[in-house]
């Protein structure tokens, strides 16, 4: 069987990525390839370097060593919008929502739709609400565009954060613990959304602690431990038991 991993161009390619915070070495020599339409599970214990890796790819801070290539071209991100500009979307673990704004306002935060009124560009509330409702419909989330995020349930908030990634034609979507704080039914919805992204050729990186989720949707699992990549295996070639022992260090590498 030819997996997407073997065939074609990688959408994201990391070479020897390392990151130091003062004396602390958070990441060391990480190589990674993600192909279009591939779902990669990124696993590891707390402090293994998952979040640091995600933040480097998302442009929160630059790596100390190594090279990032996106769509075949080397990229240097200074700010998160640089990463977003090339087609990388992130669902942050804390969701990055402004509680005092409506669902629609949060979905379009930083890229509001506007309409011209003479020399002024005013917000197009109607178009944003309509598009947001459409996105919530796709996610099967009962979320009203005009409701304040402050009044929403965990699942609704998750839907708002995920809806954001669907605004643009993202090539890579990274989700940091998207299923950690939501109901069983909503987990199903998030996983089916990941399937849909995959069908459309979007690469997905799923950072998760939940083994069943990773094994349900991922093509490949990457295990991090102590800032290094310890395993990178097709999902069919491994088992939850092996991944667990890789995470804990019972098994050093695979």
């Amino acid at each position: 069987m030819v997996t997407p991993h073997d065939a074609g161009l990688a959408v994201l390619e990391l070479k020897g990525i390392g990151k130091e915070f003062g004396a602390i070495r958070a990441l060391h020599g990480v190589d990674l390839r993600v192909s279009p339409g591939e779902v990669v599970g990124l696993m590891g214990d707390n402090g293994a370097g998952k979040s640091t890796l995600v933040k480097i790819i998302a442009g929160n801070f630059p790596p100390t060593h190594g090279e990032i290539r996106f769509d075949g071209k080397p990229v240097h991100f200074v700010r998160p919008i640089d990463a977003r500009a090339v087609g990388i979307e992130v669902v942050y673990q804390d969701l990055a929502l402004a509680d005092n704004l409506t669902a629609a306002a949060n979905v379009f935060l930083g890229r509001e739709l506007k309409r011209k009124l003479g020399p002024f560009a005013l917000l197009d509330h109607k178009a944003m609400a309509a598009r947001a409702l459409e996105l919530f419909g796709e996610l099967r989330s009962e979320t009203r565009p005009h409701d304040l995020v402050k009044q929403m349930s965990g699942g609704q908030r998750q839907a708002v954060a995920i809806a954001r990634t669907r605004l643009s034609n993202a090539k890579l979507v990274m989700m940091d613990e998207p299923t950690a704080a939501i109901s069983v039914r909503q987990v199903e919805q998030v996983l089916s959304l990941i399937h849909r992204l995959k069908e459309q050729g979007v690469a997905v990186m799923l950072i998760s602690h939940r083994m069943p989720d990773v094994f349900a949707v991922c093509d490949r699992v990457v295990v991090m431990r102590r800032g290094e990549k310890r395993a990178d295996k097709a999902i069919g070639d491994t088992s939850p038991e092996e991944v667990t022992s890789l995470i804990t260090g019972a098994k050093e590498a695979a």
Partner: protein
Amino acid sequence: MATPLESPLTFTNVGKAKWWRSGFFASQTGYVLLALVALFVVMNFASPYFLTQGNLQNVAKNFSFIAIATLGVTFVIITGGIDLSVGSVMCFSAMITSMVMTSISTPGMPGAEWFVHLADDGKTVIANMPGLILLVSVLAGLGVALVVGLVNGFCIAVLGLSPFVTTLGMLSIVRGLGYVVSNGRGSFPSGPEASYFYTLTSGVVFGLPAPFIYLVVLAAAMAVVLHHTGFGRHVFALGGNEKAAALTGIPVVRVKIEVYVICALAAGLQGIIICGWLGSAPANMATSYELNVIAAAVIGGANLAGGVGGPLGAIVGCVLLEVIRNGLVLAQVNSYWQQTLVGVIIIAAVLVDRLRSRMA
């Protein structure tokens, strides 16, 4: 990359808030407005003079004297910041405006030959088009406010200093500069165009005080900016979750600098207007006004934690403060009670909002 809807979204579990439990009616601004209306009714019975045209005009003029600055500081408060330097900026802008006007209207002063010359009979006449002196002096006043706003914004947004400390320092710096340039003496706007200045700042148009008209226009503009532009949306987002704002690509530094500049400009304009009403810019003008301005914003519903506030609230807060002041005078209450009562109202307004959000 939208996927088609399998079926239209239904809301089986998610109810819709009742109209009176959402939006304006559920906001602190709504309650305080209600309290204000009640206060008007009570005052009407308490004093026959309260609802006379003269008194209402007086009230309108008086609250306009802090309300424009309150609009400005509301922008800053919505982002979760604070500006303590507004009182000093009011004074400094007023002083610069009046000194520049006096200076360029005096033949013989450096630069004055552009604006005035002495006629044969010894009178000072305008050398250039009328209005130019006024324009230049007001722009000079607003110019110094702009600089103060930029410095505040730079220290807070770029250097990452705390807004409280930065603007506390700026309060002192700007007040000090005011004393330095004036040598502690007040200055009076004078020269051939001073009369235009007084007309524009303390005149009456269609029975309404001029400052009140500026206030209404600026408040309307602010409402549009806050709720219908990208900038306004970003101001709210910054107050709601600054980290999220940065992650979603909002230019946080720029928006922060802009709100401090807006605030300083509003304070500068306010100072210039007060100067026109007083007829002078004394060096101790508007001392501690920043507290009134912030109090008015908070009473009107701006949340010092950020994310909430608006022009209507700012005005309602100012009107409430002024009506209480006016009411106490009319009711012949010892005027020393005023400050105490204002303090009680600040706490009561915030308390009511807290109780409501706990019940909801």
